[in-house]
């Protein structure tokens, strides 16, 4: 159930394909795969956003993501999970986060993927700072409701 904080741009679909192709993947037992990919919008609160910087708390972030992965695995009996999250400088449409969940049945996959995203957004120590079209910058003070 790996988690990774990435400092450079990534292609979530390529990473997902690479991860699923590993020989040790639970081939044959998987009946459901739920995937969430979050990307950077070019607007927020009616303003045009040109760029974003994502900061995190090294160590605490990874520890928290590992903990919720393990908790989801236990609670929904998952076969595997993968969480990737960007930090650093981002441009509009850059992928920010990938949460993938593998299980035998769809209910567990849907529910665990949603739960992991909401836990991540409400407690994982990441912070967004956005640069607007007029060149000014501001910290994002709260996430949009799920």
């Amino acid at each position, binding site marked *: 159930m790996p988690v990774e904080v990435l400092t450079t741009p990534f292609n979530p679909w390529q990473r997902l394909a690479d991860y699923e192709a590993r020989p040790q993947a639970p081939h044959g037992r998987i009946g459901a795969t739920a995937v969430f990919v979050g990307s950077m919008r070019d607007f927020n609160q009616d303003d045009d956003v040109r760029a974003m910087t994502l900061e995190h*708390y090294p160590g*605490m972030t990874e520890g928290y993501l590992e903990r919720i992965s393990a908790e989801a695995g236990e609670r929904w009996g998952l076969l595997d999970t993968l969480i990737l*999250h960007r930090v650093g400088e981002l441009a509009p449409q850059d992928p920010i986060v990938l949460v993938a969940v593998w299980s035998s049945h769809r209910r567990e996959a849907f529910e665990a993927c949603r739960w992991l995203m909401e836990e*991540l957004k409400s407690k994982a120590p990441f912070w967004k700072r956005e640069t607007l079209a007029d060149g000014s910058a501001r*910290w994002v003070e709260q996430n949009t409701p799920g």
Partner: protein
Amino acid sequence: MWINVKFFASLRELMNRAETRVELPEGGSVEDVWLAATDGREQPANVLAAVNMEYVDFSAPVSDGDEVAFFPPVTGG
């Protein structure tokens, strides 16, 4: 006892530093760390705290060598 203090995001900018070290008498709490590290500054709304990378309340006790972090509400994902 000595405590290592970290500030993140908007709080780091407000404090004008990412980290500091403070000395406290034994038996201190996260609240005491805040007061020592910020020269008694009033807490901005919704400040969160972690001790050794675990979320805690401001009433939580701290020990020598602990890492105490203060940060605003998180906005990842």
